[in-house]
């Protein structure tokens, strides 16, 4: 499945899951859909029939509340049957409403914010020390960067030159109670991240070609001097609710689930 088809699949299935389960967080799932689609279609090395394959790239979804998008990507790429997506959020399933490592293909459970980057740094350190070639990707929300633990871990990653670590910030500009720049301004975010020792790439988080280039960027620097090695942060500029015009940039869709009528309307007007 090419990345465009996969992105559309992720959006459609995410909408269906959230609607069926009357769950929250569809806005952030739609904003990160293209990032996940490009990762699974073109960037990540994985074996769907062997989720624990040692050589796999590790992907951590620190913004675990947007797990519907990841579950959809994993179903589409064969980690488990698509029918299982209908279990999401129902009694007795392990398809929890925050990302769960009990689901095949999910590396680690998250839900409380600010956890992913430290764990990713630990995984990246283990790979570096052992000389293993896999890469470690971690997707964090922009509002999540309020948590100080991210900055602790980024300092650590820079100190130990973890250039196998790729942090993707889903920069959709909104957090639970409002715009990020109103709650606790993050800008100038790129400068802050650079000051913490990261290589920073700004990219349109819905432009697949740009995402492909950014997500593989550090791979093109073989034999570089250790002194210039650093973790990479890709700031993916996105739109919360992307693809569903009536949801775009509306805080309501951090919380609300579309009912059957609105689900039809969303799917009908779904834009790639």
């Amino acid at each position, binding site marked *: 499945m090419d990345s465009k088809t996969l992105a559309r699949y992720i959006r459609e299935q995410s909408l269906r899951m959230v609607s069926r389960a009357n769950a929250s967080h569809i806005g952030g799932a739609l904003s990160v859909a293209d990032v996940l689609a490009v990762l699974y279609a073109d960037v990540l090395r994985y074996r769907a029939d062997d989720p624990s394959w040692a050589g796999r790239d590790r992907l951590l979804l620190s913004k675990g509340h947007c797990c519907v998008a990841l579950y959809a990507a994993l179903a589409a790429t064969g980690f488990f049957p698509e029918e299982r997506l209908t279990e999401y959020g129902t009694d007795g399933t392990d398809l929890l409403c925050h990302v769960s490592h009990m689901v095949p293909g999910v590396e680690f459970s998250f839900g409380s914010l600010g956890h992913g980057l*430290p764990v990713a740094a630990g995984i990246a350190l283990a790979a570096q020390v052992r000389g293993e070639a896999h890469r470690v990707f971690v997707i964090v929300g922009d509002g999540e960067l309020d948590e100080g633990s991210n900055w602790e871990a980024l300092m650590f990653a820079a100190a130990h030159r973890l250039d196998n670590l790729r942090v993707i910030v889903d920069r959709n500009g909104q957090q639970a109670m409002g715009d990020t720049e109103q709650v606790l301004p993050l800008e100038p975010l790129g400068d802050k991240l650079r000051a913490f020792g990261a290589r920073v790439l700004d990219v349109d988080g819905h432009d697949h070609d740009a995402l492909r280039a950014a997500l593989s960027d550090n791979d093109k620097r073989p034999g570089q001097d250790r002194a210039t090695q650093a973790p990479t942060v890709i700031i993916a500029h996105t739109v919360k609710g992307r693809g569903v015009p009536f949801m775009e940039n509306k805080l309501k869709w951090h919380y609300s689930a579309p009912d059957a009528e609105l689900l039809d309307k969303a799917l009908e007007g779904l834009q790639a």
Partner: protein
Amino acid sequence: MRTAFINQLIKEAERHPEIVLLTGDLGYSVVEPFRDRFPDRFYNVGIAEQAMAGIAAGLAREGLNVYIYSIGNFPTLRCMEQLRLDVAYHRLSVKVVAVGAGYAYGAMGASHHATEDVAMMRALPDCVVAVPGDPVEAAAVTALSASHHGMMYIRLGKAHETVVHGASNRPGQGQALQGQLAPGDILPVKVATPVGHSAPPSAAPMGYRRAVLACGSILADVVATVTDADIYSLVFVKPIDCEALVRLAATYSDITVIEEHQLSAGAGSAVVEALSDLYAAGTLPRMPRVHRVAIPDTFCHTAGSQQYLRHLMGLTL
């Protein structure tokens, strides 16, 4: 105890290549021998306990056995949520090592008094909580931890604790202890009464016989002052060895649990809860009287040595 810990950890690291040590920028003049022996297995993550716990989880996720080391409240309460979600929930092999149990940093103030840590750590599912009573036990617990898969909390004192297990002119006893220690063990320290291994538990009234279960380095105080009771070291607050408790309850009419921790949810609570559950289940025909000696639900605002503060808070028998 901290020296006993690091010396034993170095021995274990020789045998277990998966052992890694992280510190939150503490352990000056303690951890250096490990750092010098295993420079690529030691990381000072800085004064950043939340990141330390998460990084430890990431390393452990990749198969390593990770020790995180700092003072009292810092590798525990400061990063409790990371310990809960990243480590305990994922059932990872992370060993949380805190130095300065109770009032070991007495004059440093409430920030450095580790007096609620056991309560919080024992609430985490599957987390073994070890509170060694002397350096010999600290080494034995460390040896055990090296081959224990899963999470452990190792609550150490600080330095110069009295060696209780070496006091009986039996050199090498510490070595023997290491091979034998298992999670839940309650170690006899000074026991005159034969404990009823063979006698079946009975509901019949019994004469007054008292045991003291001391948790942590306050064990040495108990050994020095108590003459009218048998003395045991409660090395583990979790798990509790229920079979051992049944035997103790069959032998003693009164059991005193003393600990350098708040009254709430510490070692005394763990013993009372276990005994109550055994009684409710019918396994235990008679409940002993359990006396809990612990910090009476208060903070300490006074400077003082560990001994001074123990007395001030009523932690005496």
